[in-house]
C-alpha cells in the first residue's frame, strides 16, 4: 500500500478531529466524547500498526525512509516552506508506541476520570495531545516538529493545570510551561541556524531532517562560527537545550515533579511515556548535529547527572507519584546518557521500553490512588506511608506494578534490562576507552542501583507489610477486574517482557523470526546516522504526495547485525567482554538494589529510621519540599561524590527554582520594578513629560518677563534693537 494523504494524515487528524468535535460535544455528551476520543486514537493505532508492519516486516523494511512533502507556503524564489512526513523505522516504532500506549492510557482514563465533572474536556485535551505527539513522530522537518512539540507543551500546560480550582496546579502548570519554554526558544534558534546553513549550502532554506543530514554530510557546518562558537556546536547546544527542557534534564528538571499535579493518566501519557520522551527523540533526530558539534560528552554528562540526581531524589519521596516522577527524570537521563555515549539504538530502545513500563507504573499508581479515599477529606491519598499491604486489596494492580518495577530495575528477561544494560554497557566501554566518560559511567551504574532500590521501596511500602493506615485500608474496595482499569495495565505489563524488544531472552545476539531469514529486530532496525550513514542522503530525492511512492534512489539495504561493530576482532572481543561485564554488573546492581529495599522495608534489618535519625538534622527539614532536595543532595552527594553536586542542589532549588521559576514573581518584581521605574521616571517623566516640563519652565520665564511693567517692555525694545545694531557689521 502506498503512503498517501488518505492513510497518513488520519494518524494525526483522527485525534485532532476528535478534539475539534469533542470540544463541541464535550458539554452535552461527555460519555460519547470519551468514547469517540478512544476510538479515534485506536484508529491512529491501527494506521500506525500498518506503518510499523511495513517498516519492520514488509516492503519498506529494506528502505530507509519515506519522505513526502507538500508546500506549506511559498514566499517567492528564496523562501519556500515545505511540510511533510518522514517515516523511517524509528518513527514507525515511535508511532506504534505512542498510539498504542496512548490508546491504553485513554482507555484507563475513561475509568480514572470517569466520574470527574470535566471528564470530556479532559479527554479532548488528551486527544489533542496525542495528535501533537503523533505529529512529532511523523514530522519530516524541524519546524513542524517544533510546532507539534509546542502543541504538546500547551496540552501539558492545560492538563497539569486541570484542577484549576486549586492554586498548586496553576503554579505547576506555569512552571512546566515556562521551564520547557526556555528550552524551546533555544530549539527555535537551532531551527534558525539550520535554515541558514541549508540556505547557504542548497540555496534554498529547509528544515527537513534529510536536508540537515545532507548538509552535515556535505560539511555545511564546517568552519562556520557564531558568537565565537562553532556553528555546529551552537546548533547542537540549541537543540539539546530543547531536549533538556522537554525531557526534564538537569538543569531544567524541576518542573516534572510538580507536573504530577495533573491527573494520573496525564502523568502517564505526557510526563512519562511520550512528551518527555519527545525530547530524547529530538536528540536522536539531530544526533548528527550533536556529533558534528562535538557535544556528545556534554550530553552524556547531562544525562548521567540527571539520571543519578533524580534517582537520589526519588529515594526519599513519600508520594507514590513523586517517586515515579523522579524515576521518570532519572530514566530520561539514562536515555540521554545513551545518546551521549553514542548508543543511538539503545537510547531509542530505552525510550520505548521506558514508555511502556513507566506508563504502566503510572497507571498502576493511578489505580492505587483512585482506590484510596481519605474519608475525612474526601480526597485521594498518594502518600506511601499511609499505604501498605495493599496487594490483598488490589491484586491485579500489585502484580502489574511488581512486573513493571522489575522491568525498570533492570532485572533480566524484562525490557528494562535489555535497554538499560545496553546503555550502561556502552557507557562502560566509552568510560574505559576515554576517561572523560568515566564519570557518566559511574553515575549511570549508581543510578541503576538506586533505581532498583527506590522502585522496590515503593513496591514494598505500597503493597507489602502491614497496613499503616488501617482506616484507609478498610475503606479501600477490593479490586474487581474491569476492562478499562485492569486491561490496559495487563496489556502494558505484557510488553515489559524483554523478549519483545531483544528478540531473545538474553537480549543479545542475532534473532530469527519464523519464516523470515535473518530478519533482525531492534538492534539493527534503527541505524545511527553517523558519517558513514549520512552519505546515503547525498543523493536524496524528494517525493511528492501521490498514489505512488517514489523509492529513494539509493539502495538502503539493511545492514546486518555486525557482531564486531565494525571493529577489529580483538577490539570486538574486548567490547564483548566489557558488555558482558556490564551486563553482569547491572544484573548484580539490580538485585542489590532490590535486596537492599527488601532488607529495609520487608525484613527491616536495615532500619530506614536509622538512616533518618542518623541524618535527622536534614531529614526534619525535608518535610518542606523546597529544602528537601537541597538538603538531600547536599549531604548524600557531598559524602559520596564530589563537591560540585553541592552546586547542583544550590542551583536547582536555591537559585533556579526558587528564584528563577517559582520566583518568577520575585525576579519579575525586581526587574520590572526597575523597568517600570525606568519607564515612568526616565522615559516618561524626564523624556516626555520632561520636555513638557521644559516647555512649561520656559513658559514660566516668559510669563515672568511679561511683567506688566510697560517700561520694562520699552527696555526690551531698546536693548534688543541696540544689541542687533551694535553687532551689525555692514561692508
Amino acid at each position, binding site marked *: 500500500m502506498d503512503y498517501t494523504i488518505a492513510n497518513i494524515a488520519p494518524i494525526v487528524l483522527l485525534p485532532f478531529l476528535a478534539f475539534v468535535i469533542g470540544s463541541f460535544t464535550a458539554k452535552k455528551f461527555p460519555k460519547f466524547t470519551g468514547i469517540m476520543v478512544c476510538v479515534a486514537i485506536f484508529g491512529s493505532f491501527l494506521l500506525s500498526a500498518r506503518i510499523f508492519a511495513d517498516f519492520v516486516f514488509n516492503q519498506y523494511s529494506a528502505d530507509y525512509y519515506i519522505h513526502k512533502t507538500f508546500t506549506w507556503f511559498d514566499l517567492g524564489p528564496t523562501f519556500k516552506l515545505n511540510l511533510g512526513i518522514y517515516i523511517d523505522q524509528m518513527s514507525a516504532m515511535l508511532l506504534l508506541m505512542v498510539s498504542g500506549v496512548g490508546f491504553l492510557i485513554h482507555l484507563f482514563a475513561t475509568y480514572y476520570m470517569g466520574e470527574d465533572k470535566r471528564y470530556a474536556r479532559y479527554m479532548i485535551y488528551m486527544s489533542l495531545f496525542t495528535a501533537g505527539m503523533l505529529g512529532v513522530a511523523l514530522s519530516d522537518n524541524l519546524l513542524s516538529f517544533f510546532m507539534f512539540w509546542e502543541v504538546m507543551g500547551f496540552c501539558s500546560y492545560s492538563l497539569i493545570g486541570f484542577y484549576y480550582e486549586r492554586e498548586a496546579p496553576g503554579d505547576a502548570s506555569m512552571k512546566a510551561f515556562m521551564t520547557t519554554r526556555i528550552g524551546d526558544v533555544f530549539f527555535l534558534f537551532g531551527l534558525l541556524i539550520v535554515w541558514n546553513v541549508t540556505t547557504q549550502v542548497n540555496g534554498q532554506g529547509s528544515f527537513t531532517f534529510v536536508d540537515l543530514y545532507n548538509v552535515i554530510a556535505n560539511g555545511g557546518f564546517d568552519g562556520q562560527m557564531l558568537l565565537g562558537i562553532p556553528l555546529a556546536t551552537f546548533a547542537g547546544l540549541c537543540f539539546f537545550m530543547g531536549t533538556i527542557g522537554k525531557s526534564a534534564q538537569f538543569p531544567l528538571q524541576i518542573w516534572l515533579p510538580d507536573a504530577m499535579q495533573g491527573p494520573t493518566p496525564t502523568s502517564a501519557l505526557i510526563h512519562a511515556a511520550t512528551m518527555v520522551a519527545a525530547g530524547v527523540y529530538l536528540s536522536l533526530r539531530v544526533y548528527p548535529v550533536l556529533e558534528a558539534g562535538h557535544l556528545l560528552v556534554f550530553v552524556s554528562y547531562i544525562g548521567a547527572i540527571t539520571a543519578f540526581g533524580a534517582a537520589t531524589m526519588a529515594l526519599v519521596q513519600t508520594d507514590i507519584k513523586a517517586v515515579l516522577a523522579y524515576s521518570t527524570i532519572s530514566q530520561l537521563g539514562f536515555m540521554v546518557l545513551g545518546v551521549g555515549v553514542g548508543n543511538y539504538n539503545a537510547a531509542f530502545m530505552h525510550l520505548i521500553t521506558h514508555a511502556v513500563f513507566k506508563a504502566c507504573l503510572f497507571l498502576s499508581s493511578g489505580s492505587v490512588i483512585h482506590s484510596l479515599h481519605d474519608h475525612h477529606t474526601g480526597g485521594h491519598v498518594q502518600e506511601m506511608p499511609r499505604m501498605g499491604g495493599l496487594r490483598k486489596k488490589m491484586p491485579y494492580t500489585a502484580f502489574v506494578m511488581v512486573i513493571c518495577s522489575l522491568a525498570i530495575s533492570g532485572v533480566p528477561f524484562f525490557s528494562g534490562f535489555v535497554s538499560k544494560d545496553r546503555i550502561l554497557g556502552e557507557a562502560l566501554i566509552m568510560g574505559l576507552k576515554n576517561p572523560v566518560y568515566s564519570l557518566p559511567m559511574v553515575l549511570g551504574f549508581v543510578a541503576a542501583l538506586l533505581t532498583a532500590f527506590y522502585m522496590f521501596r515503593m513496591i514494598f511500602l505500597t503493597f507489602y507489610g502491614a497496613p499503616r493506615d488501617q482506616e484507609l485500608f478498610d475503606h479501600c474496595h477490593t479490586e474487581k477486574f474491569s476492562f478499562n482499569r485492569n486491561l490496559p495495565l495487563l496489556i502494558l505489563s505484557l510488553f515489559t517482557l524483554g523478549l519483545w524488544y531483544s528478540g531473545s531472552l538474553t537480549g543479545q545476539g542475532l534473532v530469527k523470526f519464523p519464516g523470515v531469514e535473518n530478519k533482525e529486530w531492534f538492534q539493527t532496525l534503527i541505524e545511527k546516522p553517523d558519517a558513514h550513514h549520512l552519505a546515503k542522503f547525498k543523493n536524496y530525492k524528494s517525493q511528492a504526495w501521490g498514489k505512488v511512492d517514489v523509492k529513494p534512489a539509493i539502495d538502503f539495504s539493511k545492514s546486518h547485525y555486525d557482531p564486531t561493530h565494525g571493529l577489529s576482532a580483538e577490539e570486538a572481543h574486548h567490547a564483548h567482554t566489557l558488555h558482558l561485564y556490564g551486563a553482569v554488573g547491572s544484573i548484580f546492581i539490580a538485585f542489590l538494589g532490590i535486596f537492599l529495599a527488601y532488607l529495609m522495608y520487608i525484613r527491616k534489618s536495615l532500619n530506614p529510621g536509622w538512616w533518618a535519625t542518623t541524618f535527622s538534622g536534614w531529614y526534619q527539614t525535608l518535610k518542606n519540599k523546597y529544602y528537601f532536595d537541597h538538603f538531600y543532595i547536599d549531604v548524600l552527594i557531598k559524602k559520596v561524590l564530589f563537591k560540585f553536586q553541592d552546586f547542583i542542589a544550590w542551583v536547582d532549588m536555591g537559585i533556579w527554582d526558587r528564584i528563577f521559576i517559582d520566583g518568577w514573581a520575585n525576579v519579575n518584581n525586581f526587574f520590572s520594578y526597575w523597568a517600570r521605574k525606568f519607564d515612568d521616571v526616565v522615559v516618561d517623566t524626564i523624556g516626555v513629560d520632561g520636555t513638557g516640563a521644559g516647555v512649561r519652565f520656559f513658559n514660566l520665564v516668559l510669563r515672568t518677563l511679561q511683567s506688566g511693567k510697560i517700561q520694562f517692555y*520699552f527696555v526690551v525694545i531698546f536693548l534688543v534693537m541696540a544689541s542687533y545694531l551694535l553687532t551689525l557689521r555692514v561692508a
Partner: protein
Amino acid sequence: MMGLASYLIISTILFICGVIAILARKNIIAILLGLELILNASALNFVAYTRFLNNSIDGHIFSLFIIVIAAAEAAVALAIVLRFYQIRETVHIDDATQLQG
C-alpha cells in the same frame, strides 16, 4: 557751523532725552512728554534732511503730519490717562501692572 551734523546732534539729544524720560519717569504724563520729544526729534530730522540733502518738500510735509498726529495722539493719550486717573486715582505707571503674565 549750521551743518547737518548740528541738527542731527540736536535731534539725537532730543531722542535720548525722550528715551530717558520714558524709562526713568514714573508719571504717565511725564512719559508722554518724553514721547513728544522723540516725535520732535524725528520731525527735526526730516526738515534738516530736506534742507541739506535734497530739496524735496516731502520732508516738510512729513514733519507737518508728525506734528498733527502727535497732537491727535496726545489728545487721545491724555483722555486715556484721565480715564485711568478717574478709576485708579493714580498716574503712577507701576500701578498699571494688573495685566501681566
